[in-house]
């Protein structure tokens, strides 16, 4: 089986178009996120979250009335998994589960109320977890930059990080925007954080594979125009990219469709992140390196690229 026989697609010829597209998208998503705000899940916001199940579906409004009348504040109700499962959230933490369960039993005497899970997070833990997430991502980025600078040239490391930041910012803001628009239920919680970190790993992984090929080709085709070289490397790894992304997406889509409410958010973030990661490895990471050489180092890519990449002239 073979999809491409010696593909020769000019990926980088249109790089400016894609860079502009990416920047526009990032600005738009970041703006929307700043305006609409981020909806933190219980893990980061603190409070109490109770998942309940009734025998038959009931109206969320009735649940809200029942729970609010029990004297709980900041009550939010969401459907959760099946039709008859609900997620009730409140700011209070002291004996909220008991209050909720009593209020619901009173309001729906014909329903059997089952408490599926209870999460109580103190406000301190919430903010701590937020800081933890921030540091985890920052530290991961720094460590990778160091590793890549060591394995490749420094500018390649920066290129990979630029692509990575692109992916993380876009994935995060797209997820937040999807949640704010009410398209999917995606609050920022611990499993979303895990997914984001996986995206971090994946994004770099993808970029590294193309850079690895550029490094190899640079030796093989000494003196070749860098844009051509990058294009060649992307084309040579295209088959791998399609197959790996394909299988990973296959796995993630089955997770998204069949994985239940707990895995769904995780899978969706990964799907967005992996598509973006693949795109950015091709258009952002290499485009950044090209831009750096052309505009900052003022190197004529036709002739002088060896001064930056490869062996420095004596």
């Amino acid at each position, binding site marked *: *089986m*073979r999809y491409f026989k*010696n593909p020769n697609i000019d990926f980088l010829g249109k790089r400016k178009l894609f860079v502009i597209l990416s920047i526009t998208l990032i600005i738009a998503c970041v703006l929307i996120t700043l305006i609409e705000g981020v909806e933190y899940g219980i893990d980061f916001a603190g409070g109490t979250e109770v*998942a309940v199940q009734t025998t038959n579906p009931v109206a969320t409004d009735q649940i809200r009335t029942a729970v609010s009348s029990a004297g709980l504040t900041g009550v939010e109700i969401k459907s959760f998994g099946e039709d008859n499962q609900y997620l009730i959230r409140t700011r209070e933490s002291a004996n909220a*589960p*008991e209050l909720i369960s009593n209020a619901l039993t009173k309001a729906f005497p014909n329903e059997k109320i*089952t*408490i*599926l*899970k*209870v*999460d*109580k*997070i*103190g*406000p*301190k*833990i919430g903010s701590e*977890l937020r*800081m*933890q997430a921030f*540091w*985890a991502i920052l530290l*991961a980025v720094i*460590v*990778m930059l160091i*590793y890549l600078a060591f*394995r490749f040239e420094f500018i390649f490391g920066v290129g990979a990080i630029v692509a990575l930041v692109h992916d993380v910012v876009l994935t995060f803001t797209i997820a937040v925007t999807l949640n704010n628009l009410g398209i999917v239920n995606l609050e920022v919680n*611990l*499993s979303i954080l*895990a*997914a984001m*970190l*996986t995206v*971090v*790993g994946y994004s*770099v*992984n993808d970029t*590294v*594979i193309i850079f*690895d*090929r550029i490094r*190899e080709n640079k030796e093989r085709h000494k003196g070749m125009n860098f844009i051509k070289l990058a294009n060649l490397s992307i084309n*040579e790894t295209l088959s*791998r990219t399609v*197959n*790996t992304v*394909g*299988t990973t997406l*296959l*796995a*993630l889509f*089955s*997770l998204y469709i*069949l*994985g*239940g409410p*707990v*895995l769904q958010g995780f899978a969706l973030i*990964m799907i967005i992140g992996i598509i973006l990661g693949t795109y950015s490895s091709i258009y952002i990471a290499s485009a950044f390196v090209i831009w750096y050489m052309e505009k900052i180092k003022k190197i004529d890519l036709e002739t002088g690229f060896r001064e930056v990449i490869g062996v420095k002239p004596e």
Partner: protein
Amino acid sequence: MKRYFGKILLVVVPVIAALVLLYPTYQASQLEQKERQAIAQAKKAGNSSDSLEIMEKFKKQYGEALKTAKARRLKLGLDLRGGMYVTMEVDVVKLIEESAQNETIDEIFKDVIAKTRKEASASDEPALNIFQRNFNNIARPQGKSLLNYFDVGDVREASEEKIIASLNESIDKAIDQAQEVIRQRIDQYGVSEPNIQKQGTRRIMLELPGVTNQDEMRSLLQTTARLEFKLVRNYKEIVQAFYKIDKLLSEQIKRGKGFATADPTTMLDTLKKDTANVAIKTTEAKKDTTKLAQKSDTTKVDTTKGNQDTVKDPYAGLPPEEAQRRYALDHPFTTLFSTFFVPGKNQNIIPIYYTSDQFPEGEYIFRIPKDSIGKFQVLLNRPDVAALIPADLEIVIDAKPDTRIKQNQNIEIYDFYALKKEPELTGEVISSARASFDPTTNQPIVLMSMNTDGAESWARITGANLQKRIAIVLDNRVYSAPTVQSKITGGNSQITGMANAEEARLLEIVLNAGALKAPVQIIEERVVGPSLGDDSIRSGLNASLVAVILVVLYMIFYYGLGGAIADFAVILNVSLVLSVLAALGGTLTLPGIAGIILTVGMAVDANVLIFERIREELDHGRSMRSAIDEGFRKALSAIMDSNITTFFTGAILYYLGTGPIQGFALTLMLGILGTLFTAIVVTRAIIELLMAKGATSFDFGQPKIKSN
């Protein structure tokens, strides 16, 4: 054959290792199914000897095997099987507060503590640092030093640094001790396979599978279990203090200061109303208790007026309602509860009114309705009020309402006591505790025995306080306050006043495990019901299974026989991850499953990289053998670089994350190691073994090319 022996080993050994390590998991699930069957049979049998026999038989046949299998199997996380996840934190502020010497604590110190508590609840900074900063800002300008509050033994060597060092030490010790105490409590409570871990410097993380009674568990975990024996000092002294408190408060109300908040006039009004209400309630209560007294003692019925007769009644001549209202206004504090005088043994208790400061010598009883307790405590905590209570005394309320009144009148009335602050004896002397029933009343009790030192002291204390009452105080609530009838030697004592046998059992557990040196509080609590656990494990497994099947089929579709080998390597990789997880005693959580799926992706990627390279080399016209060599060689750097960067992410997550995130990170890291091993070593070994007989072609799904 000999040349290939090493390669065969490379393939066979990991397979065997995975099988061996995962077998207990399989065995445990099989045996548990058998156990369930046996239990069902036993239930069916009904007859107790039959059902016992069935269970005995099961235990004899499989008991040991089940136990070892359970110990070695892959454990499922709470999100997959239901249970309770709790993070507790040692209350360092409280510990600092309690380390200070009782008699030295003043307003300045209380200020510092209050501010520290507020800041510590919203900050990550160690509470001791916050305390020091606040102390320097608030107490030091007022001429106070730490030496004023803390005792470090030898005065000559005392220094502030020493105090901080010793506080630091007790904070460190408190967490270890708390962990130990909580472990013992959990063990005795009977949670199977609990996971108790210290997290950072002052947190304890608990995973309690199968625990569904959260309330009981919460009280079991949070109880400090500080047991103290204190002398009851319900004497004239405290009644006089109450009298003074009345005077102070009523004057404040008259001056319009009320409870010293924003709007004095409305406060005054509400206070008037409130106290009037309470007065009516308490008079009702008084009536009730009087009735009770009448029932219990028929010799004397004159219980109406108490000390009213002996002094001049200032409300004489007023209509009864007006007199009552006026009385309530003048006595905002003592109308919250009722006071009785005990004239002597076997005599009726007499209600006491605070109309004059002349009170008879002797013993008193205080009873307070449940509704008034909140206000009562608020008032007692006010500094100006607290200053009127004698310094060596404290007011402690009963743990449970008076059962007789509750049964007869259905009103919850609590006794409270003035206790000598310094305990006579503490729970440290308790060597064992046992829940039982009082043979005469059939009430639940906890019997305690003391060690030799404790028994000696107890004999001395009881001997010195004959016919006096000693309160048994647990976590600042009085469980009982019996009168010492005779000197108790042998170190036995008992606690009564529990609501039910269950509470007695919890008390037995906490007393046996010992007291916590510092209070702990629950800061994070997650409970997963088993039904959600079932749902999520089912959908998680289904999704993973479908994902794996799709990936396997795709690989065979694209890479032919090579794809099949890659599939084998990937499955072996997942099995290895699971078996190492089982061997390390880790737990498989939902994020863990996600990590495994990511592993599948990475492992497939590694194989894809290799096969693509081999196919490229074939395109360049290499022979199959050299293409394979080159393919593996050239793909190596890309595989290494991409896996190492992802491994870093995993390591950072594992290091910085907690709970579920760590589960994800651990499987991810194990998966990457597995990927490197299986994709680079195992896949290659299999390909070379398959080509051992001098084959010159191999199906990597490459289009057929004409051989030349």
